[in-house]
C-alpha cells in the first residue's frame, strides 16, 4: 500500500521560504497573493497490507525521521 505524508510548519514558526515565494509571485505580477507556506509531500510504497499496521508504522516514521516535530506537524493518508 502507499502512504502520502504532508509535513507542514507549525503555526507561528517562521517560513522564510514561503515568504520568498509570496514575494516573488507578487513581483511576477500575480495580485492578491497573501500568506504562502511551503511544506513537504512524501510518498512511500509499503509492503504492509494491513491498514492499521501501516498507519502505525508510518506514524512512527514521521515521529522518528520524516518530520521534525519540534517545528513541524505531519498528516498521513493511506491509499491502496
Amino acid at each position, binding site marked *: 500500500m502507499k502512504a502520502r505524508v504532508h509535513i507542514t510548519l507549525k503555526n*507561528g514558526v*517562521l*517560513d522564510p521560504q514561503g515568504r520568498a515565494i509570496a514575494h516573488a509571485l507578487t513581483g511576477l505580477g500575480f495580485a492578491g497573493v497573501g500568506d504562502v507556506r511551503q511544506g513537504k509531500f512524501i510518498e512511500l510504497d509499503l509492503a504492509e497490507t494491513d491498514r492499521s499496521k501501516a498507519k502505525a508504522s508510518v506514524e512512527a516514521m514521521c515521529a522518528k525521521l520524516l518530520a521534525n516535530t*519540534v517545528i513541524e506537524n505531519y498528516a498521513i493518508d493511506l491509499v491502496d
Partner: protein
Amino acid sequence: MNDQAAAKPAITPEPAITPEIVAEHGLTPDEYQRVLTILGRAPNLTELGIFSVMWSEHCSYKSSRRWLKRLPTTGAVVIQGPGENAGVIDIGDGQACVFKIESHNHPSFIEPYQGAATGVGGIMRDVFTMGARPIANLNALRFGAPEDPRTRHLLAGVVAGIGGYGNCMGVPTVGGETNFHPAYNGNILVNAMTVGLADKDRIFYAKAAGVGNPVIYVGAKTGRDGIHGATMASAEFRDDSEEKRPTVQVGDPFTEKLLLEACLELMATDAIVAIQDMGAAGLTSSSVEMSSKGGLGIELDLDLVPMRETGMTPYEIMLSESQERMLMVIRPEARESARAIFEKWELDFAEIGRLTDSGLLVLKAGGRIAAELPVAPLVEQAPVYDRPTEPTAPARPLRSESVRAIEPIAALEKLLGSPDLASKRWIWEQYDHLIMGETVIRPGGDAALVRIPGKAKGLAMTTDCTPRYCFADPKLGGAQAVAESWRNLTAVGARPLAITDNMNFGNPERPEIMGQFAGCIEGMREACLALDYPVVSGNVSFYNETNGKGILPTPVVGGVGVIDDVDKAISIAFKAAGEAILVFGATIGHLGCSIYLRELLGREEGAPPPVDLAAERRNGDFIRGLIAAGRLSACHDLSDGGLLVALAEMALAGGIGAEIALPANLAPHAFCFGEDQGRYLATMPTEAVEAVLAEAKLAGVPARFLGRTGGLALTVAAGNTISLTKLAAVHETFLPRLMAG
C-alpha cells in the same frame, strides 16, 4: 523616578503577579523583592518579563561577573575589551579586527539545525553591528559519546545548520574543534566564533546619544519566536524540558545577508549614532542596553514594531527572539537616506520610538502605557552573586610505569581512528571555507589563516580547549586552553594578539561547579598575562547540566593572531622528502589525562601535563622567529595524542612518509603519546639542523633531531612501520562511518 512611576502606573490590564508567575520567570523571591523596591510598586507582566530576561544569568552574568573581572582585558592592541557586542583589536594599517565567540548550546540540543544556524547568525550580527565585515567563522563543538543514540542526529543537524547559515552568508568557516565525551550526552556544546574586519576609525557602538533622536527598527519582522530563550539558556535541563519546548527560533540567512549589506552600506555614511543587534531577549536587551549606556531614557511605541503575527502582546513583543533584527539610533536628518538603503535591500525599516531624558524605558501600545521602568536600576541593580566555590581536589599524579605499554605503531593506528583524533573532514567539507578567496590555510591543520583583502598580511585564528584537563585540574586546564590556542597561532607563524572565550559549565549554584569555573578563570588569567594575550570578548554558558550531571568544564578559547606576510606562513604538511624532523620543547612523556590512556586503556585519570608558561613563551617565540626567517618548511604544535599523532597528521597532510628513531632514555609509549605541553614538530633542510640546534640551545629551547621525511610510510625505530594509505584510511573513516549509521 518611583513617584513618577506611581503617578502614571502601567495600565494595560494583565494578570496580577503571583509567586508562581515570579518563579516561572526564574526570579528568586529576593530578586523579586529587589524589583518591588526599584519600582515602588508591583510590576505588570510585561515589566516582570523584562526584569526576568535582563536579570537572567545569560544577560546579567550574575554568577560569573565577579570572576570575569579577574581576566586581563587590556593591552597595546586592545581598542575595545569585553562589554560591547564584540572585542576590537588594532591590527595596523588603520584596520581593526572585531571578534567574539558565543554559545548556542541549549537551543542546539532541542533543535540542532536551527539552534546551530541561529547561533551562527547571532554571532555574525554581534560582529557586523560594530561596523565590521565578517571574514571568517569558526566553531567549537562538543557531543556525547558516538554510540549515544542522539549523537548522530545532533552532529548531523548542528553541522548542517552551521554550514547552512554561514555558507549562505558568504563567510568562510575556516576552523574549529570537535570532541566527543559521554559527559555531553544530555548537553552538547555549540560555540560559534566570528572574525570581522573594520576600519579602526569606523567602529560602531551601542551607546545611545541625543535626546529626541529617532529609534529605528530594521531587519526581519517580529514573531513569537523563542520567547524566553534567554531564560531557557539560564535554566538547568530536566528530562521533561524536551517536552515543554519553547518556540524554536528559525534562522533566515538570506535576510541576514541583506541585513549585513544594508547595515554596512548605511555605516559608510554618518547616519548612525548607536546600533545594537537584537539577540537574546531581543527588543528588551537592545533598547535597555542602548539607553543605559547613554544614560538616557527611551520611549517605544510597540504598535509601530513590524509584526509577522497578529495579536502579539507587549510582553511577547518585548521578549520575542525573532532573528535578523537590529535597533539603531540615527541622526534625524538621515531618516530618509537610511530608509532608502533598507528599502533597496527589501528590509523593514520602522521608526518605533525616540530617546528621552527621563531615564525611563517607556513602552506604549494601543495608546496606553504597557510598561514604564527606570533604566539605570534595571541594569546597575541587577543581582550579582558571590556563589560558594569548592575547589576541585587535586588529581593524583600517575606514574608512567603504571601505564601499560602498547607497541607505538599499533597504538597510533587505533588513536588516529578514535573520535577525538579522527579527521574532521566530514564536518569542514560541509562548510564553504574558500569563499572570499582569501583562505590561505584551510581547516585540517593548526590555526586557519585568512589573508586581509588587498594586503600581504593575514589573520590566523583557532579555537581550543581540553576539557579533560580542566576537569582534573581547572586552573591548569584554563591555562592550557589559552596556551594551546597561542601555540596553534604560533605554529603557522602568526603573532598571537588576543582571545575571546566561551565558558561552558554546569550549574553555578553547585559549589564544585563554581570551583571549576573559578579555577579555570585563574588559569586563564595567568596564561593571558604570561603570554601578553588579553581577553577582548567572551560568553558564559551555565546550567549545561541534566538531572544534576554537569558537563566537563569547557572554557573554549578563540585566539586571533596576525602575520605580516601570508607567503611566510607554513602549514603542517610535509613539503619534501629527505628533510629533517625536529621536536622543540621538552618531552618527558607525561601520560596522565592523555588520549592514549583514555582511548587505549579506558582510564580517565591522573594529573594533566604541567603548563610552564615561561617555557611556552620561549619555545613559541623561537619557533615564530624560525618561521619568519623562512627556515622551517612545516610546523605542527603537539596537543591531543602527543608526538606520534602529530607526526602522522603532518605525513598525511603532505602525502610524504617519515622515519624516526626512539630515544633510549624514555619508554616508547611515553615518548610517542605523552602530552607534554609547549612543544612543536617542524621540518627543515638537513643542512639547517646544526645551526638551528645551536640557536635553540642558546635560546634555552629544548630541541632534538627525530628523523627524516620520505617514503610513503611512517616508520618508528626501524622495523615498526605502517603505510600512509592504511593510516589515511583509519584517520578518514571514523566520522563518515559514524554518520552513515
